[in-house]
């Protein structure tokens, strides 16, 4: 089975600073990690390869430093790593991103049977790239998968969606996005990390390699534009009361009544 795992390198920090000019976050000096759900997708690929044999290719669209995430993925067990990088790719929304990744996958030889992605990233949170990539390739999709089984010529997968647990049979080739709970990624032996960084080979493809035009990709190829990036305004009322403990307790009771947690009629 030939599997492609799409990963994204994302910032690993609760403290974010904003670049107001480019309407994006400042990534300098910030540690980057493989998006946690993508790591779970990779783990799923490793499990499938163990059972079915085949090849795992890991792929990402990003700046040059995204290579770090690819090599980490190779250390975990991916056989091949492809970095889609080009100045033109920058500023892409999910529409443009799925175009680039879709074109890259179409170029792959052998052509994959299965694409795995994390359901969403911890930075943009959209969860769009998976379905849009499936549409770009005209493949069937199931999102938020929590179990994967391989049958004769199909996959049987489980998904929890809007309070229902659904089981689907999906024909090959297919795209699945994975949810938390599918697996717990293994720890990577240190020697494998050493090997991936010293000997691993990362393939790089740019605009020309993918036979794309500048207006199809990056900022130019995007339909949406971010016009403002900001911190949510503090929405708490922030009423602070001092006084005797009796007074405070009364305020507290009054609040509980106003929230309909206590009934008003029980006068003290």
């Amino acid at each position: 089975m030939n599997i492609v795992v799409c990963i994204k390198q994302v910032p690993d920090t609760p403290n974010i600073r904003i670049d107001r000019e480019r309407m994006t976050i400042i990534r300098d000096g910030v540690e980057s990690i493989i998006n946690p759900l993508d790591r779970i997708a990779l783990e799923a690929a490793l499990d499938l390869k163990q059972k079915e044999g085949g090849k795992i290719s890991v792929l990402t669209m990003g700046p040059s430093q995204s290579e770090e995430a690819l090599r980490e993925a190779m250390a975990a067990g991916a056989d091949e790593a492809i970095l889609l990088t080009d100045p033109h790719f920058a500023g892409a929304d999910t529409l443009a991103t799925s175009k680039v990744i879709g074109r890259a996958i179409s170029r792959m030889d052998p052509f994959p049977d299965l694409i795995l992605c994390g359901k969403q990233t911890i930075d943009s949170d959209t969860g769009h790239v998976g379905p849009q990539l499936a549409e770009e390739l005209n493949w069937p999709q199931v999102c938020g998968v929590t179990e994967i089984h391989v049958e004769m010529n199909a996959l049987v997968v489980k998904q929890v969606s809007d309070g229902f647990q659904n089981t689907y049979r999906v024909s090959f080739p297919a795209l699945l996005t994975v949810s938390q709970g599918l697996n717990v990624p293994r720890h990577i032996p240190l020697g494998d990390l050493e090997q991936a960084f010293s000997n691993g080979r990362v393939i790089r493809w740019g605009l020309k390699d993918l036979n794309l035009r500048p207006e199809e990709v990056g900022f130019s190829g995007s339909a949406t534009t971010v016009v403002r990036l900001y911190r949510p305004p503090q929405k708490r009322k922030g009423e602070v009361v001092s006084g005797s403990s009796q007074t405070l307790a009364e305020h507290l009771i009054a609040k509980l009544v106003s929230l309909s947690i206590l009934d008003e009629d029980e006068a003290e």
Partner: protein
Amino acid sequence: MKTKQNRDWEGVWVFGDYRNYFQNRVTLQLIAKGNQLARNLGVDLTVLVLGSQIHQYAMEYTAHGADVVMVVDHPNLKNYQVETYVRVVSKLVESFRPEIFLAGATAFGREFFPRLAKRLNTGLSADCVSLEIEAERRLLIQTTPAFGGELLADIITPEYRPQMATVHPDVFEERIHDHEATARILYPEVEIEAEERVQLIRSKPDQSRKGGLEEAEIVVVGGKGLGSKENFQMLFELARLLGGDVGATRPVILSGWTEESRLLGQTGKSVKPKLLITAGTSGAVQYTTGIQGAETIIAINRDPHAPIFKMADLGLVGDVKTVLSLLLENLKKRL
């Protein structure tokens, strides 16, 4: 798709996601908001409903504010199916050309709408928490969370139509059911093909994740400021009387006042209850990240400068133990 002439596209559409109706109100909330946006633009609000034997939903959506309800009723549409729905809906969008198309950010919405947006080659924003119209360019300003809600982004889709967005539940308020309301009901002709590639084998209600701290509607949390394990025990009584659960901060766990499974914060659980009462906690960021999603926060602390008061809806400055004792006394009398 990319448009030269935005004025060809007119109308606000809402996708009628009726799964788990009556508990899931997001479509109704979107109808209310969509109605407001439509008035702003001087156009109709259309609700699009796909399914089998769905007439009742058409009635419901009419009663909740739709100007138009577009119904596609066919046995092949009985189960929600991404590719089938994308096929049907994209054809309708191409025919009718709405300028705005909204869907609730349900699990299905978040799986179906992106694929639809790609089919239509247009922009989509995810899980919006605010929608406004910029009248001059007839633009929908879509506000979405990023970085797990740490930041907000305002997004526009200037040159592509329709402008699509999925919307977070409970952001907007639905309109009251109005028996008298009327709407135009349309039954467009669309070709429906059965889905081959993804087949639903089984579907049953999801029973996992019932109960537990993360499910509690009311959470009472204690910090080191409570002073002792005995004082901390008061919270269990309080939780019992209010019908909630008990959480704790790390210093409390380290002191052995309660078990680790009650830990809230960066290294513990995150909760989003209706009400959170936090007593004797100073408000360290490692803790508050676990509670910031609560609807209402009441904080009790001796120190008027404690940072917890910055994120509370109601702050009480005083002796924690005494206030809690008085509260318990009062509650026991009532309940």
